[in-house]
């Protein structure tokens, strides 16, 4: 019997589906487990044939793995999604205003909303960019905000991921595979399409080209074939029809960026870069970087090339700054935040630190400048020794730690060796911000395939699911209203 111990994305009780999933569960009733397994095998074969892979670090260079795909979709109702979408737009709008302010007037600091020392000590803060403001004041053109759903079914923002978030290619591929391998279950279901993302991304990039460029040229900059997200880089470049370049393909002359073509040098106006700040420009950041382009930052500061995301956006992605995002939203937009933050204790604050140290066993401790689940200590599951070591690290380096209560992740039915079982999932929607803000319907649902595990990362036993946002029952779809203008 299917039984989740927390909020389940498909079933309200053992027997009854959640309202948005009713039609799907009815259809699923006519499909045997064996049939599901056949579809699963077909999906995996397709992934393998298409070489839809990610690279695993820490193994031999170039080891590609197919990312496990689960054939059962995660379904979101129209209304519940509408609220998430509004919340994401609000959040990204406020974060863009915040970053622009931080590198210019710093009103938010002067008005006492965010402590100055927090910004000064954020390792992702780039003082080189003081006084800089990108086209349309768009700093984070592309964000992949991580959301989780707690026991009560409420969404919380876990991380904002403003620096090269990946995963969107899997959203598009998952939908494709779903249609290919499970067309019968798709027929007649009113699911919002996701296919317009590449078009929206290209539009966002071109909208943010340097002023005065008539027909701007955009490229995707990748660290190369051994990067874990290389598949995605090629996918996005291909879908947008732009060149996928590596650092060696670019050169900077008189503060303009050019790519080396078979017909000589050609100017580049917008770079969707999938290289971290540190490696962008050996002249400005890490000198030993062979991935970047010498002089790129000069070109960027001179306003001759747009980098997406802009360098320095990571300052709003610092986990200690994260704690202030609700205040940041109130400050810039005079609105109450629509999406909740996970309550966060900032260890650089003495009072909060004492609380954290006293309650370590019940909290999750995270380093402020890491992503991808690295360096996290789960209090309730840690040994005494691990907790003691963690406490030492916090005392030695309070600025670099935050703590949060342990959340439950919602579950969704997943095909396992023992039939359908609840597995924990999260959700990473993708938000584009150029002239306007666009939210892709749904996003990437990652699933922890190991029973009870809450670790959804692909490198650590996670898989993914297609994410369905059901269409507006009243028939006025937001995605149609969002169609690109001429």
């Amino acid at each position: 019997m299917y039984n989740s111990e927390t909020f389940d994305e498909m079933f309200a009780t053992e027997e009854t589906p959640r309202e948005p999933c009713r039609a799907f569960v009815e259809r699923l009733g006519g499909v045997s487990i064996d049939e599901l397994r056949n579809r699963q095998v077909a999906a995996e074969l397709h992934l393998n044939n298409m070489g839809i892979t990610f690279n695993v670090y820490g193994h031999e260079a170039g080891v590609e793995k197919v990312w496990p795909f689960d054939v059962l979709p995660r379904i979101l109702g129209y209304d519940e999604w509408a609220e998430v979408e509004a919340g994401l737009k609000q959040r990204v709008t406020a974060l863009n205003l915040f970053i622009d302010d931080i590198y210019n007037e710093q009103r938010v600091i002067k008005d006492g909303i965010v402590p100055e020392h927090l910004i000064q000590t954020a390792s992702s803060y780039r003082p080189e960019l003081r006084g800089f403001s990108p086209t349309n004041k768009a700093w984070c053109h592309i964000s992949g905000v991580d959301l989780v759903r707690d026991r009560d079914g409420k969404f919380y923002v876990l991380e904002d991921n403003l620096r090269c978030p990946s995963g969107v290619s899997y959203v598009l591929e998952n939908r494709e595979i779903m249609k290919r391998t499970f067309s019968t279950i798709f027929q007649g279901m009113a699911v919002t399409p996701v296919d317009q993302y590449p078009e929206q991304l290209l539009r966002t990039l071109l909208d943010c080209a340097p002023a005065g460029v008539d027909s701007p040229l955009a490229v995707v900059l990748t660290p190369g074939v051994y990067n874990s997200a290389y598949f995605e880089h090629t996918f996005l470049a291909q879908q947008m029809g732009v060149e996928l370049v590596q650092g060696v393909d670019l050169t900077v002359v008189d503060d303009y960026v050019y790519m080396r073509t078979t017909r000589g040098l050609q100017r580049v106006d917008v770079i969707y870069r999938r290289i971290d700040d540190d490696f962008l420009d050996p002249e400005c950041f890490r000198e030993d970087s062979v991935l970047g382009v010498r002089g790129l930052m000069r070109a960027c500061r001179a306003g001759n090339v747009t980098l997406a995301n802009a360098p320095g956006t990571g300052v709003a992605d610092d986990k200690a700054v994260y704690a202030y995002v609700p205040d940041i939203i109130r400050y810039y937009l005079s609105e109450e935040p629509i999406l909740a933050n996970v309550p966060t204790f900032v260890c650089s604050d003495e009072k909060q630190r004492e609380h954290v140290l006293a309650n370590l066993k019940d909290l999750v401790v995270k380093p402020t400048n890491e992503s991808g689940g690295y360096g996290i200590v789960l209090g309730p599951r840690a040994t005494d020794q691990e907790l003691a070591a963690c406490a030492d690290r916090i005392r030695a380096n309070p600025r670099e730690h935050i703590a949060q209560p342990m959340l439950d992740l919602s579950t969704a039915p997943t095909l396992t060796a023992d039939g359908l079982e609840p597995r924990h999932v999260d959700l990473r929607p993708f938000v584009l911000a150029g002239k306007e803000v666009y939210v892709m319907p749904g996003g990437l649902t990652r699933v922890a395939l190991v029973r009870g595990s809450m670790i959804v990362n692909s490198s650590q036993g996670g898989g993914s699911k297609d994410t369905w946002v059901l269409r507006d029952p009243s028939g006025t779809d937001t995605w149609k209203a969002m169609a690109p203008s001429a």
Partner: protein
Amino acid sequence: MLSRVAESVFWMSRYVERAENVARFIDVNDNLTLGEGVDLSEQWAPLVYTTGDQELFTKLYGEPQRESVLRFLAFDPRNPNSIFSCIAAARENARSVRESITVPMWEQINKYYLLVQSSLQNARFVAEPSPFCDLVKHASHTLVGTTDATMSHNEAWHFSRIGRLLERADKTSRILDVQYFHLLPNVQDVGSTLDVVRWSALLKSASALTMYRRVHGRITPDRVAEFLLLDRDFPRSMRFCVMRAQDSINEITGSRPGTFSCRSEQQAGRLRSEMDYTAVDDVVQQGMHEYIDGFQDRLNEIGAALQKDFFTLDTDAETQHQTQSQRMLR
């Protein structure tokens, strides 16, 4: 297009063509040794010469034997020209330009790689190499067809065609060189069964037998040489390959016919016109081996010139001029 992409597309095609030719060599040679009744180990040695890797082979295996030659040519990752190595390299090249080739092309090359990889463990290969060779040839043809049918015939497509044709010209010349030398002592016994069988095998290794028959009918050594060297219409003949490669270079540069704007274009054009006005008797008189040696050198020169003309730009020297013209283009 990006220079790096042009180079990768060129090599991708080149490696695929190389793998296909190795499969052809194996297939025909195996076919030839069947039914001979005696140990024909010595028949496997020329195969290693054909691919030009005899030094490496001797180092790894010593005397050529059927099994070792088969493994070396098909699957040995230590041999950079084995079918496995070639397809792995082709796929790596394709992977680095995945955004510039079409989805069906990528799917085909990826499946091709998975096919070869899954055959590594195939115990039946040594006993029966032919089914595997067929699969390789088909996979190559499917890729070429997919490329022609799904990719715009743009600059990238032309670079891919040049890569394929230069490789094919080189391989046809090699097999002709080795087999001609090998078969020559028998030239006097025209009409004897074995002779015709082996000359036919030479044509078959280039899938040329049917087309040869239609053009020349009976098999004679000179006509076979002529067909593989100088036929104007047969897609695996050396001349055909050079002609079409030059066409593609022309398309890329946009030079008027009979003119050239870079070294590679000049050299390809020169080689082509020489072949246009060459008769097989001239070649025989000069000596087949000497002619082919010279031909291969010329191909290498074209390859090196392509590298310099398109793949590695001397940007420092060019920068000023190019940035000026680009600004004006805007």
